[in-house]
C-alpha cells in the first residue's frame, strides 16, 4: 500500500460515495454498445444442433445459399479446415474441438453452420433451409453417467470423459485423520446456473481485402488474451487483427468465452464485401453462452471434540459440459481457497473435470467459490450440530485470527489482511442472532418455522493466471497486470484509457476520484474512455474486466501513469515558473510555488507549452503530455503445485440470515438479511455497497430460482426467462449492511475485490438458515436450488434436500 500523504494532494474524493458519473448515458440509452454501431452491416445467424450428442453425417446448405438475400454460408467442417483446434488450458487429457461442430455435435445448441444475409430475418429464414443429417448418439448428461465404464465418450481421443483428475495434497492429511475424534463426511451438489447480463454477446467483424486483416468490435471481457487466441486459431499474425471493445452491458465472466464466435465471424467476413454483425439472442445465450458447471463435492473433515478442524479433504467433480478451453478451471479455483476463513492445516483436493453433453461452461461470478463455500460452510454447520457447538462459536474457534495476517494457507495462498472474528461479531450483532434464536423457539410453539443461518466466505480477487496450468504444467500466462494511459489535453483536462473495459462497475467514476486527488482537480475534469482498441489502448495478455482485478492492478496502472504525468507537469511548471520542483505544489488545477504566494501556472498553460509552444520547451524535452504505464501485482508466485497463490487479494464477508419456511408450500421468506463486508479501503463506498447487494441477489437467484434443467435426452428445458428464473425486486429481501476495513497491504490503495462476495457467501447462509428452520423435521440441506417442491418433499418424506 502506498503512503497516501505522498500519493494524494487532496483527500476530497477518495473514499467518498461519489455519484457515478457514467450512469446518465446508460439510463438514457445513449451509451454505444456493439449493436449501436451502425455500419450498414450484413447479419449473421447460427444453425445450432437440435441434438445433445450426434454424429454429423451431412450438411447441405444449397437451399439456404439459393435464398434471395443470403450472402454466404459457412459450416463447421469448413471452419475446421482453416482453423486450429481450441487451446485447452487446465485439462491434461487430449481433447480436440473446434470453434464450430465438425464430425459430431456435443451439446444442444452447438453451432453447426452460420449464414450471412442482408438482414437477420432472412438469415434466420435461411437456417430453416439447411439440411442436416444427424446420427443421434446416446447423450451423457450427469456426472455419474459420464463416469460409467461403458459411457459413450465425448472425446474419443481422450479415452475417458474425465479430462482432468489431479490431486493436490498439502500438510499431513492422514495424520489429521488419525488425530481426529471423528471424521465427518458429506456429499453436496450444486446445480448449473449462470449470469445473464442485459446485453448478450455481440460482434461486428470487417475484413479489409487489401491487407487481409480484420477489424472486430466485440463486448469481450478479456481482450488481451482474445487477441492471441483468435489470431492463433485463425493462424494469422496478431497485427492483422484490430480488436475494439466498446461499452459492454454486463459481463460477470461469461463474456470471457466470446472469442470462438469472433473467429467464426472473421471467417465469414472474408466471404462478403461488407461488415457483418451478430447479436446473440437470449435463447442462444441460455443454450450455450455460457454456464457455470454443476458439480458434486465430496467432503471429509477430521475434527476434534472441541470443534477444531484438523483437516479437509475434497473430491470435486465438475460437470464442464463440452468446452475444453475452460474445462477444469473451476476446480483449481475452489482448491485455492478451499480452507475458507479457517486455520485448517492439512488439505487434500482431487479435482475432476468431467465432459458431458451439457452446454459449455466458462468463468461465472465467483468461479467455483460459491460452490466451495456452500459445501464448506454447510459442513461447518453439520460439524457444529454433531459436536453440540453453536454454529457461530465453532467458527470463532477455527477462524484465522487478525494477528496471524498475512496468513499463508497450506497450498500457498496468502490472505494478506482481514479480521474474520470481528466481522462475524458485527454480523451477529446486526443480525440479532441471539434474539432470533429465542424468537425461533417461541414461534415453533405456534407452528411457525424460522431459522437463522451464518456463512462466512473469502472473496478473492486479481487472479494469478498461472493457476490455469496447475495440472497441465505449461504456463502461457502468469501473474496479473494491466495498462493505462493518462494524458493532459489542450484544456488541461485529463483523458484516460485503460486495458479493461468496465461492464457496469463504475470504473470511470472511481478512476476520476483517484486521479482528482492525485492531481488536485475535480472529477468532472477527468474523462475515461471506456473502450479498448488494440491499436491504441495500452494492454497486456491479462487485460480485461474480470477476477476483481480493477481495484488492484487496473488502478495500479492508472496511478503509475498519473505519477508519470504528474512528474512531467512539475518539470514543465518548474521551467515556466522558473522555480525548483521541490518548491512546487498542486492545487485547483494549477501548480503553485510554495514559497511565493500567488505565483502559479494552470494545467491549461502547461498543456499549451507541451502541445503548441513547443519551441519554448526546455532543451531535450519531448513535446506532448501523455504517459503510458503498466502495472503488475508483485506478489504473484510462479506456477508450482506445492506453493502457489491463485489469487492475489482476499476480501471477506459474513452473512447472517433469518428466514421463515412455509412448511405447507415450501416457500421461504426472509425476515432479516445482514451482510458484513470487508474489502479493505473503499474508494467509493456507494459502489461497494451496490456490488455487495447485487452479488448477493445473484447468489439468492442461484439458491432459489436459477437453474439450467436438462431432460434425459439432453434437451435444455430452460431456454427463456419464463423458465430460467431470475430474481426480481419482489423476491429480494431488505439488506442491512455493515462494513469492516482491513486495508490490503499488497495493493497500492489498500483496496480489495468487491464484486463477488455476495455471490459466494449467500448460498450457504440461506441453506443453513433453511436447515435450521426445519430442524424439527430433521431435514438436511445438501443441494440447491431450494425449490418449494424439494422443501415440501423433504419435510414430508425424504428428509434431504
Amino acid at each position, binding site marked *: 500500500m502506498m503512503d497516501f500523504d505522498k500519493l494524494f494532494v487532496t483527500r476530497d474524493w477518495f473514499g467518498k460515495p461519489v455519484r457515478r458519473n457514467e450512469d446518465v448515458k446508460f439510463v438514457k440509452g445513449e451509451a454505444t454498445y456493439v449493436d449501436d454501431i451502425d455500419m450498414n452491416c450484413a447479419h449473421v*445467424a447460427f444453425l445450432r444442433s437440435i441434438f445433445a450428442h450426434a454424429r454429423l453425417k451431412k450438411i447441405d446448405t444449397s437451399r439456404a445459399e439459393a435464398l434471395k438475400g443470403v450472402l454466404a454460408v459457412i459450416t463447421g467442417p469448413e471452419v475446421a479446415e482453416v482453423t486450429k483446434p481450441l487451446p485447452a488450458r487446465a485439462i491434461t487429457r487430449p481433447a480436440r474441438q473446434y470453434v464450430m461442430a465438425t464430425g459430431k455435435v456435443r451439446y444442444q445448441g452447438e453451432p453447426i453452420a452460420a449464414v450471412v444475409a442482408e438482414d*437477420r*430475418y432472412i438469415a*434466420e*429464414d435461411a437456417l430453416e433451409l439447411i439440411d442436416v443429417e444427424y446420427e443421434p448418439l446416446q447423450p451423457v448428461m450427469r456426472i455419474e453417467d459420464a463416469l460409467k465404464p461403458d459411457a459413450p465418450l465425448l472425446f474419443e481421443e481422450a479415452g475417458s470423459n474425465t479430462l482432468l483428475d489431479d490431486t493436490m495434497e498439502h500438510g499431513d492429511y492422514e495424520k489429521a485423520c488419525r488425530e481426529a475424534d471423528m471424521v465427518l463426511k458429506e456429499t453436496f451438489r450444486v446445480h448449473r446456473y449462470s449470469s445473464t447480463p442485459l446485453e448478450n454477446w455481440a460482434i461486428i467483424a470487417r475484413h479489409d481485402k487489401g491487407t487481409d486483416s480484420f477489424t472486430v468490435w466485440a463486448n469481450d471481457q478479456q481482450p488481451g488474451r482474445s487477441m492471441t487466441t483468435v489470431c492463433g486459431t485463425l493462424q494469422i499474425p496478431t497485427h492483422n487483427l484490430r480488436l475494439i471493445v466498446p461499452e459492454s452491458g454486463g459481463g460477470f465472466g461469461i463474456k470471457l468465452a466470446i472469442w470462438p464466435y469472433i473467429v467464426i465471424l472473421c471467417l465469414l467476413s472474408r466471404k462478403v464485401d461488407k461488415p457483418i454483425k451478430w447479436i446473440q*439472442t437470449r*435463447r442462444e445465450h441460455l443454450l450455450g453462452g455460457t454456464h457455470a458447471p454443476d458439480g458434486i463435492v465430496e467432503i471429509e473433515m477430521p475434527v476434534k471434540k472441541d470443534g477444531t478442524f484438523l483437516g479437509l479433504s475434497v473430491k470435486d467433480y465438475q460437470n464442464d459440459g463440452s468446452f475444453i478451453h475452460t474445462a477444469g478451471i473451476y476446480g483449481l479455483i475452489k482448491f485455492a481457497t478451499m480452507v475458507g476463513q479457517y486455520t485448517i492445516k492439512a488439505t487434500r483436493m482431487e479435482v475432476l473435470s468431467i465432459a458431458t453433453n451439457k452446454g459449455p461452461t466458462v468463468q461465472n461470478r465467483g468461479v467455483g467459490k460459491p460452490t466451495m463455500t456452500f459445501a464448506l460452510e454447510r459442513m461447518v454447520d453439520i460439524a457444529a450440530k454433531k459436536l453440540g457447538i453453536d454454529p457461530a462459536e465453532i467458527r470463532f474457534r477455527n477462524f484465522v485470527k487478525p494477528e496471524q495476517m498475512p496468513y499463508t494457507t497450506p497450498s500457498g495462498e496468502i490472505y494478506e489482511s482481514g479480521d474474520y472474528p470481528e466481522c462475524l461479531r458485527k454480523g451477529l450483532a446486526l443480525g440479532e442472532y441471539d434474539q432470533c434464536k429465542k424468537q425461533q423457539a417461541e414461534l415453533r410453539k405456534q407452528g411457525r418455522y424460522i431459522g437463522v443461518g451464518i456463512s462466512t466466505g473469502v472473496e478473492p480477487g486479481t487472479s494469478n493466471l498461472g493457476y490455469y496450468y496447475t495440472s497441465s504444467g505449461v504456463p502461457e500466462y502468469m501473474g496479473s497486470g494491466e495498462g493505462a494511459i493518462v494524458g493532459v489535453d489542450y484544456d488541461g483536462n485529463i483523458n484516460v484509457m485503460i486495458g479493461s473495459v468496465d461492464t457496469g462497475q463504475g470504473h470511470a467514476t472511481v478512476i476520476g476520484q483517484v486521479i482528482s486527488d492525485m492531481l488536485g482537480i475535480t472529477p468532472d475534469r477527468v474523462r475515461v474512455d471506456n473502450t479498448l482498441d488494440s491499436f491504441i489502448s495500452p494492454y497486456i495478455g491479462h487485460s480485461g474486466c474480470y477476477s476483481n482485478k480493477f481495484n488492484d492492478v487496473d488502478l495500479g496502472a492508472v496511478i503509475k501513469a498519473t505519477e508519470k504525468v504528474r512528474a512531467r507537469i512539475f518539470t514543465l511548471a518548474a521551467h515556466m515558473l522558473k522555480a525548483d520542483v521541490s518548491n512546487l505544489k498542486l492545487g485547483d488545477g494549477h501548480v503553485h510555488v510554495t514559497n511565493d504566494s500567488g505565483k502559479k501556472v494552470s494545467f491549461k498553460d502547461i498543456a499549451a507549452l507541451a502541445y503548441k509552444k513547443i519551441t519554448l520547451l526546455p532543451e531535450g524535452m519531448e513535446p506532448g503530455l501523455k504517459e503510458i504505464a503498466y502495472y503488475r501485482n508483485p506478489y504473484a508466485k510462479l506456477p508450482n503445485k506445492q506453493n502457489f497463490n491463485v489469487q492475489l487479494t482476499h476480501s471477506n464477508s459474513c452473512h447472517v440470515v433469518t428466514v421463515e419456511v412455509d412448511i*405447507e*408450500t415450501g*416457500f421461504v421468506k426472509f425476515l432479516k438479511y445482514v451482510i458484513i463486508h470487508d474489502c479493505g479501503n473503499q474508494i467509493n463506498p456507494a459502489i461497494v455497497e451496490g456490488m455487495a447487494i447485487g452479488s448477493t441477489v445473484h447468489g439468492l437467484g442461484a439458491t432459489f*430460482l436459477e437453474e439450467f*434443467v436438462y431432460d434425459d435426452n439432453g434437451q435444455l*428445458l*430452460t431456454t*427463456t426467462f*419464463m*423458465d430460467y*428464473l431470475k*430474481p*426480481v425486486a*419482489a*423476491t429480494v429481501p431488505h439488506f442491512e449492511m455493515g462494513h469492516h476495513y482491513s486495508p490490503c497491504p499488497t495493493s497500492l490503495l489498500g483496496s480489495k475485490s468487491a464484486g463477488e462476495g455476495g455471490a459466494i457467501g449467500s448460498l450457504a447462509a440461506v441453506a443453513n438458515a433453511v436447515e435450521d428452520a426445519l430442524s424439527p423435521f430433521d431435514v438436511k440441506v445438501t443441494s440447491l436450488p431450494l*425449490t*418449494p*417442491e424439494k422443501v*415440501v*418433499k423433504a419435510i414430508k418424506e425424504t428428509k434431504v434436500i
Partner: protein
Amino acid sequence: MIPSKFDYYSPATLQEALSLLSEYGDDAKVLAGGQSLVSLLKLRLASPRCLVDLGSIGNLSYIHEDGADNLLIGAMTRYAEIAESKLIAEKCPLLRQTALVVGDVQVRNRGTLGGSLAHADPAGDMPAAILALKADLKATGPKRDRWIKSEDFFLGMYATALEANEILTEVRVPVLNDRQSAYLKAARRPSDFAMVGIAVCLKRAKNGTCEDVGLGVTGITDKPYRPQHVEAKLRGQKLDPAAIGAVAQSITEGIDVNGNIHASPEFRAHLAGVYLSRAIQAAIGS
C-alpha cells in the same frame, strides 16, 4: 425479436377484422395486448401468415353495467384498467384481485382480458376468475354474436370454443351481492405463471355456512376449470379450517394433473389443496 414473416393488418372496425379472419381462417392470429402471442412469435413457436391487430378498433375497451345486474367488459380492456376500475372494485372485486397479480406492471399495462381468455393458457390467471364468477363470453362472428358460458369456453391447451372466424368481444359478469372473494396463486416468483391458482367467489349464510360458492382453478391441467364437485361439497358446510381441509384435496379429483420443471403433478395437486383452503380463508377475511 426475429419472427418469421407475416402480414400485419390493423383494421379500424370489427367488421374488417372479422372479414380478414374469414379470409385467412387458421392462418390468421388475432393480436390483442400481445403479451402471450408476441413471445411465441419471437421464438418462432407460432408462425401465422397474418396478424390481425385489434388495437385500432375503438370500441372494445370499456367497463359498464347493463342495467340487468351484469357488468359488461370489453375484450380489449387491459388488466391495469380492470385493477384500477372503481366499478369493478365495488361490484366484482375478484376481477380486481386477479388482475392485480397477473404478470408484472408491463404485462398488466399491455395485456387484455379478452386476449388472456382467448389465448387460454392453461396457467392463465383471468380464466380462473371468470370461471368462479360464472361469467359469459361473447363470440362475435361474421354473421352473428353468440354467448358462451365460461365453463364451456376452455377446451384444452390454448384451445377455446371460439371458431376460427370469431373474435371474443365482450365478457358479461353477473353482479352478485354479499359475495366475498379471493384469488391466490402459487408461483415461483410473483410475476410468474401460476403453478396453481384458485379463485373463490363465496356467499356465506348468516350462520357462517357456505350458501353458494364459485371456484376457478388454473395451472393444474390442460385448461382452467371449475370444480363443480367441490363447490357442491362446500355448499351448506361450515367453513372452518377442518371442514375446508376435508374437502380441499378433492379439487384435483378426476383431473389429469400436469407437471413441469417448476412442479411435479404430485406437488401441484398438493398445492391445489393448500391453496383452496387458503383462498377460501382469504375470501372469508376479505
